[in-house]
């Protein structure tokens, strides 16, 4: 039972992020993909083309973001941009960058002229000493600042990204002052996630007792300057009046699946008691292992609704009975596909669970009888039926089928639900079937490790 907190589940349908390559000319001390630099490859170009072609048809995403590594180093950068632009299927094309190459005004202009209109620039220090120490590249701060100046003059949308570590934690508010002249549309603050160094041997994890006050000061300053903030991986209850700025969503990322397997997982000891227990990730496991659960520091927001165990781990397809249901979706479009079905069969639509790869309708027929009707992205995979957008199946049948007439009622309900979805599905409704889009050939051979990752276990002083 690994929780949604356990498995980072990208859920935002608006944005598509494409990992072009993992090379970089900086070497940020916290870089979450630094290990990957050595053996991940970027997305194969033809898969990227296929994703764009899919978006041209399906209009699934409004924005495409190119990231790496440092994407501005990519030889085919303009090929990537051209394809996205020519598809006319994205409202915005964004680059996630350290900003250094944009110090060259001609290059900056060329990228803007090619169609990139949003620049998500990393700035981890408020001054050259801090930033260059973090990036391990003297001059990188000055280059990034010149890059920001150029982008500002070119009139594009600028966003900044700051990774929160012990290296910049005392001076976060000063970063707001540093970027203010460039009028960023938003500043994003991402708490450091150890991808390899789970024991934090590098000492980059900042204890909440120090990080939270400093971050709150920075958020307040950004607010005073009229700059929007977004915070990831910091407990909401520690953000004070800035709780609304917590945003733990991630775009869909075209990236090797293994990348997410290495993502740290999260937990909060107060999850069941907290109104935000479903969306606030709490603390990541390496943090808890090092600093404890912070059970006296985290303050749950009183729940207005009873807590229910989230749908765990292996997403849907569970044969677990009712206790494992997910939060009902508030998306009427999806509920609308089966409205009226339950009533026709003296049943109840108990839940609509919309997840990245599936939509599940759970029907209850009374006396403990339940059945799920499951929608997955339309494909050639075996299915009971197909609608314009989906493969349809039923599963998780919980019933005493020896009860008189129950089997017939269940069959009729499932049949009705399936026919109703087929009749109402307008086409173009999207569930993600992209798992495995990036195949084995996207991973360079990884050197065998002599020993497993070390996990802080307290057995050492």
């Amino acid at each position, binding site marked *: *039972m*690994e*929780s949604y*907190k*356990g498995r980072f589940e990208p859920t935002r349908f608006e944005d598509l992020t494409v990992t072009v390559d993992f090379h970089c000319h900086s070497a940020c001390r916290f870089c979450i993909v630094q290990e990957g630099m050595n053996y991940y490859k970027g997305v194969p170009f033809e898969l990227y083309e296929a994703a764009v072609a899919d978006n041209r048809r399906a209009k699934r995403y409004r924005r495409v973001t190119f990231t790496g590594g440092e994407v501005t180093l990519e030889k085919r950068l303009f090929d990537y941009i051209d394809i996205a632009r020519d598809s006319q299927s994205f409202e915005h094309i964004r680059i996630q960058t350290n900003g250094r190459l944009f110090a060259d005004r001609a290059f900056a202009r060329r990228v803007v002229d090619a169609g990139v209109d949003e620049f998500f620039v990393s700035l981890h220090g408020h001054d050259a000493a801090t930033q260059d120490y973090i990036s391990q590249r003297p001059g990188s701060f000055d280059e990034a600042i010149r890059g920001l100046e150029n982008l500002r003059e070119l009139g594009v949308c600028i966003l900044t990204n700051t990774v929160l570590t012990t290296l910049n934690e005392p001076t976060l508010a000063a970063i707001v002052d540093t970027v203010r002249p460039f009028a960023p549309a938003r500043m994003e603050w991402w708490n450091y996630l150890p991808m390899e160094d789970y024991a934090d041997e590098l000492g980059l994890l900042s204890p909440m007792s120090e990080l939270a006050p400093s971050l709150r000061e920075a958020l307040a300053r950004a607010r005073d300057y009229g700059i929007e903030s977004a915070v990831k991986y910091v407990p909401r209850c520690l953000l004070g009046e800035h709780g609304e700025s917590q945003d733990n969503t991630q775009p869909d990322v075209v990236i090797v699946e293994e990348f997410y397997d290495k993502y740290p*997982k999260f*937990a909060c*000891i*107060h*999850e*069941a*008691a907290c109104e935000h227990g479903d969306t606030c990730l709490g*603390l990541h*496991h390496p943090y*808890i*292992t*090092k*600093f*404890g*659960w*912070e*059970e*006296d520091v985290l303050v749950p927001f009183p729940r207005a609704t009873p*807590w229910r*165990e989230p749908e*765990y*781990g*292996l997403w849907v*397809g*569970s*044969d*677990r*009975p009712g206790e494992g249901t997910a939060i009902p979706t508030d998306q009427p479009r999806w509920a609308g596909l089966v409205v009226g079905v339950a009533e026709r069969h003296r049943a109840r639509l108990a839940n609509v669970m919309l997840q990245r790869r599936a939509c599940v309708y759970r029907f209850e027929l009374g006396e403990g009888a339940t059945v799920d009707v499951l929608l997955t992205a339309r494909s050639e995979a075996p299915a009971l039926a197909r609608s314009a957008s989906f493969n349809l199946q039923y599963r998780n049948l*919980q019933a005493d089928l020896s009860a008189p007439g129950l089997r017939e009622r269940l069959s009729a309900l499932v049949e009705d639900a399936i026919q109703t979805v087929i009749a109402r599905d307008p086409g173009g409704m999207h569930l993600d079937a992209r798992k495995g889009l990036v195949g084995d050939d996207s991973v360079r051979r990884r050197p065998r490790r002599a020993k*497993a990752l070390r*996990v*802080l*276990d*307290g*057995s*050492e*002083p």
Partner: protein
Amino acid sequence: MYTPTTVEHPRHRLASSAAAPRSAGGERLFDLAFAPYRPLRPTAGKAGGDALLWEALQVAGARERWEPALRAIQRGVGRGRTIWGASVGAAQRTWRLRLANPGRVRLLEALRAELGPWLAVAPSVDDDGAYDVLGIELSEEVAARGCVDAVSHYLRGAEPRTLEVWQVGSAGRRRVDEVLIAEAKREINVTLPRIKASPIVDFSGDRSLLGRTLIPELFACRYLHVCRRCDADALVYSGINVDQLTWFLSRFGHPAALVDYARGQRERLDHLLFDVEVAYRQEGVAIVYPETTLYGNL
């Protein structure tokens, strides 16, 4: 309907696993408190609850020695009522068995009869059947002596949802464990004070110690069993999935071949929930883990 016995379970009383829902393969699945659960996946083509036990015995080189006796229990007194455990600790590998006794019958006598060809079981203990669960522990040392000296009696405690564990043998009867069982997340306000009120770990001195005793990777489970023993505390994480199990085996030094097996057989094991136990105590500023145990259905 579950058959209630005498030990309360958070949501239902400690139940006879004989009442557990049958999976498609005919196997009844239940947790360490003998509370039944439904398999997480359709069970066709999946491994049984005992698969990991045989593999654990195999990689420990102990399968030949113990499988016949365990099969005898499985066929006889233990059917649908037995939990097995594989422990790794500083001393030696041990194999635990817990048999539910909802009817308070003379289970020890039945067990003696089954194990007679291999072992004597607590010959000095009179069996009055006055226990809810009967436990025994097997090891190389037991095999060498041909005798299990003591058995464990699990009894409903004075407080709701508690168990007392008594060791009963030739040396007499002594309490060796007190257990509190509660839902992991929803009832953390029940378990946390109990965990912190430890005579073994000084949580008031170093708050970070809790992060190494209540293991975050295992917190996403169904129930926590808070165990207070003579020389260590322990937490049982009841109802973890196969991915957490693999992490646990790897993290706590279970044999690499068993880790590989769990990883390689993931698709055949993903319908099961597992219970794992981590015993811990404080040594200076460190938390050490003297013994960890994996449990499953026999």
